C-alpha cells in the first residue's frame, strides 16, 4: 500500500482539525474568547425584505468583529402569512435555526412560546428593554425576545411640497383632513389626494389599524373587551370609523386612478415625486423610499391618522420585531446565540442597525439614540412619543385576536365593492376563528 504524499498530508490535516474541534467543543462552557480554536457557527433566520437583510448583515458584521470565535450564517424566509407557516412548521419539526426573527404581539403568542422558545428572563439586559416592547414578547411572565429595528408608526405620510404650494395645514381631525383633500383635488388635478396601493393588499389596512389610538382615546377598555368577545368593530361606533374612513376616501374619488393595481413602490414613487399628497402607511416604508429617492428624506413628513377630537389625536405604534432562540438550540450554540441577542439589545446593536439604513422610528432599548441624520417623517414621530397620552400600541399588540382577512376586506371597502358596516361585520366573523383557534375564553 502506498500513499501519495499530498493525500496523506491532507488526511493528517483533516484528522488533526477534527481532534482540535473535538477538544474545543469539550472544553467550552465558560466562554469562547480563545479565538479561532473555539469557533462556533450559528444560523440566523430572517425575513427576505431588503431592509431586513441589510440590517442583519450589518449586525452580524459588527458582532463577529467583537466576537471572533463566533460566525453567523443567515437564512431567509418569505414575509407575511407564508413566513408564518414556515416558522410554525420549522418549530414544530424541531428544524428551526439557532436564532430567528419573528413578529411580536398576537403572532408571537401563536407560536406557543412556552413550548418552543428559550426564556431570556435571567439576562442582565432585560431591564434595558422598553416596557411596551417587553409586554409584546412575554408569555406566562417570561420574556422571550429582544427587539430588532425600531418602533413603527401607523400614520399618514404626506408630501411637504404639495402642502406648501397649496398653503395647507397638518390636519388634526378627520374633517380637516377631508377638507385638505378637497382643496388638493380642486386646485391641482395632477396630484392624487390619497394614495392607495391595493396591488399589495396589506397596505389597504392602515385607515383601520392606524386609527386605533383614536379608538382607545374614546373607549380605553376596547382592547380588553375585544379580547373577551364583548366589543365588536361593527357595533362600536369609534372602531367602525376606520372602515368608514376607508370607504369615504373612495366614495369622494380621492384615490389615485390606478389604486386597484398599484403596488407599494408605485405609491412611494408618487409620494416622493409629489404626484400624491397623502399615503397612509407604516413608517417602516420610509427607509425604502429614502434609499430610492434621497430627496424624500426632506420632502416627506408624517402625521397621525386624524380622528374626531383634535385634543385627543395621537399616533398608533407598532413594536419592533423580535429575535428569539428556539428550544432546539443547545450547548455552545445556545451560548453564542445568547451573546448575539445581548449584542442586538445593546446601544452598540442599535448603532449597527442605524448604520444599515434609515431607522423606522425610535429604538426599544434604553440608551439608544437615532442620530441627527434621520428622515423628516421619522423626526415627526418624536413629538407624539414625547407627549404623554399621545401614542398607543396597535390593537394587535394589546389583544391576541387578529383576523387574517382584514386586508381583503379593506380592499373591498376601499374599492366600493362592500359597504363599511358590512365590511366591519365581516371582519368580526373573521376574528372569531382566530380566537377559537387560540382557545380564548368567551368565544
Amino acid at each position, binding site marked *: 500500500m502506498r500513499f501519495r504524499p499530498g493525500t496523506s498530508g491532507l488526511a493528517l490535516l483533516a484528522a488533526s482539525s477534527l481532534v482540535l474541534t473535538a477538544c474545543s467543543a469539550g472544553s467550552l462552557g465558560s466562554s469562547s474568547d480563545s479565538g479561532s480554536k473555539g469557533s462556533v457557527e450559528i444560523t440566523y433566520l430572517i425575513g427576505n425584505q431588503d431592509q431586513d437583510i441589510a440590517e442583519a448583515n450589518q449586525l452580524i458584521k459588527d458582532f463577529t468583529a467583537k466576537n471572533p470565535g463566533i460566525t453567523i450564517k443567515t437564512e431567509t424566509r418569505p414575509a407575511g402569512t407564508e413566513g408564518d407557516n414556515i416558522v410554525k412548521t420549522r418549530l414544530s419539526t424541531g428544524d428551526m435555526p439557532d436564532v430567528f426573527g419573528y413578529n411580536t404581539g398576537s403572532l408571537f403568542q401563536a407560536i406557543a412560546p412556552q413550548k418552543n422558545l428559550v426564556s431570556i428572563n435571567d439576562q442582565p439586559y432585560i431591564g434595558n428593554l422598553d416596557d411596551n416592547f417587553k409586554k409584546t414578547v412575554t408569555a406566562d411572565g417570561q420574556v422571550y425576545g429582544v427587539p430588532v429595528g425600531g418602533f413603527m408608526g401607523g400614520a399618514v405620510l404626506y408630501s411637504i411640497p404639495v402642502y406648501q404650494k397649496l398653503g395647507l395645514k397638518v390636519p388634526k381631525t378627520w374633517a380637516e383632513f377631508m377638507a385638505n383633500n378637497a382643496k388638493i383635488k380642486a386646485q391641482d388635478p395632477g396630484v392624487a389626494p390619497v394614495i392607495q396601493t391595493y396591488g399589495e393588499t396589506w397596505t389597504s389596512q392602515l385607515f383601520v389599524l392606524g386609527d386605533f389610538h383614536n379608538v382607545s382615546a374614546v373607549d380605553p377598555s376596547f382592547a380588553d373587551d375585544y379580547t373577551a368577545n364583548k366589543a365588536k368593530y361593527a357595533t362600536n361606533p369609534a372602531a367602525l370609523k376606520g372602515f368608514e374612513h376607508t370607504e369615504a376616501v373612495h366614495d369622494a374619488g380621492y384615490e389615485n386612478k390606478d389604486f*386597484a393595481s398599484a403596488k407599494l413602490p408605485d405609491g412611494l414613487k408618487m409620494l416622493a415625486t409629489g404626484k400624491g399628497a397623502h399615503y397612509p402607511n407604516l413608517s417602516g416604508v420610509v427607509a425604502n423610499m429614502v434609499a430610492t429617492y434621497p430627496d424624500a428624506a426632506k420632502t416627506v413628513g408624517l402625521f397621525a391618522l386624524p380622528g374626531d377630537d383634535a385634543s385627543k389625536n395621537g399616533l398608533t405604534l407598532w413594536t419592533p420585531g423580535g429575535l428569539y432562540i428556539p428550544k432546539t438550540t443547545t450547548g455552545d450554540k445556545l451560548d453564542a446565540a445568547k451573546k448575539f441577542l445581548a449584542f442586538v439589545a445593546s446601544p452598540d446593536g442599535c448603532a449597527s442597525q442605524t448604520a444599515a439604513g434609515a431607522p423606522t422610528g425610535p429604538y426599544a432599548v434604553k440608551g439608544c439614540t437615532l442620530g441627527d441624520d434621520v428622515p423628516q417623517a421619522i423626526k415627526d414621530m418624536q413629538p407624539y412619543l414625547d407627549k404623554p397620552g399621545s401614542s398607543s400600541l396597535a390593537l394587535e399588540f394589546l389583544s391576541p385576536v387578529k383576523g387574517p*382577512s382584514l386586508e381583503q376586506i379593506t380592499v373591498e371597502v376601499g374599492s366600493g365593492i362592500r359597504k363599511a358596516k358590512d365590511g366591519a361585520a365581516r371582519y368580526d366573523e373573521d376574528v372569531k376563528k382566530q380566537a377559537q383557534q387560540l*382557545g380564548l375564553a368567551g368565544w
Partner: protein
Amino acid sequence: MRSVAITSVKPRERSKARPAASAAGSKVYRPYSNWFYLPTAIIYGVLFLVPTFASLYFSLTRWSLFESKFIGLDNFKLFFQEPALVKGFTNTLIYAVITSGSKVVLGLLLAVLLTSQIVARGYLRSVVFFPVLVSTIGVGLTFTVLMNPEKGLINESLGLLGISGPGWLTDPKWALLSVAAVDVWKGVGLATLIYIAGIVSIPREYIEAARVDGATSWQQFWRIVLPLSRPATVTVIILSLIGGLRSFDLIWAMTRGGPGFTSDVIASVIYKQYQAGFYGLSTAGNVVLFITVTAIILPLSWFLNRKEVDL
C-alpha cells in the same frame, strides 16, 4: 359500431370467467411471494394511507401544529358558515363550467381545422399545444403584466383603437372571467390534441360513403365527426372539469382571489385558511373539496360512459 360493441363485451366475459376459475382451483397461482410486495406496501401505507386517515382525524380537531384538540364536527360547521365559501363555491362552479365548456368547443373546432389539409399543419399543431408546456405560474405572472389596467399591453392596444379596456384583474366583474380566459388559452392545446386523436381514428370509409351519398361538409361534421368523437369529448369534459374544480395555481398567481374575495375559489379559500394557521379547519375544507369533486365527477363519468356503450 360493431368494433365498439366487441371491445365492451370482451372484458366482461373475462371478468366473469375469472371468479369461476379461482373457485375451481383451491390454490390461486401467485407469481411473487408476499415479501415481494412489502416495500411497495410500506411506501403506499406511509405516504398515502396514513396521511389520508390522519387528515380525516385532524379535520375533527383544532390543530395548531404544536397540539391538537378534538372538537368533533365543529370545523365542518365553521367551514360551511364561512361567508367566503358561498362565493368560493359559486366561483368554482362558474370557473369549471366556463373553462370546460370553452375547451370542448374551441378544442373541437381547432382539431377540425388542424386535421384538414392546410399548410404547415404540423407546425400549427405544435403551436396550439405549446402553452400547455409552459409553467402555470409563469403564464399567470405574464398575463398579470399584460392585463394591467394602466400599463398593460392589452389595454394599451385597445386604447390605440379608441376603446378603453376594463381593469381585467382589478374589476370585480371581470377578474374571474379574465383568469378563466387565460386558463382556456393555456389548456385548449390538450383538448385539441385529444380531439385530433379522436378525429383521426374515425375510419375514412364513413366519410367517403357519406360523400358518395352527397352529404355536405356540414352534414359530415354533424352526423359523423361529432358523434364519433364522443369518447374524446367525454375525456375532455372530465379532465377539464376536474381541473377547473380544483383550480388554484393560476388564480393564485393572477389575483390571489382578489380584488377582495371576488375571484376566490374553494381551493384558494382553503389555502388562505392554511396560511392563517387554521390547520384543522382547512383540513376539513380539503375533505369537503374531495367529497364535492367526487360527487360531481363520479355520476357524470358514469352517465357519459353509459351513453358510449349504447352507441
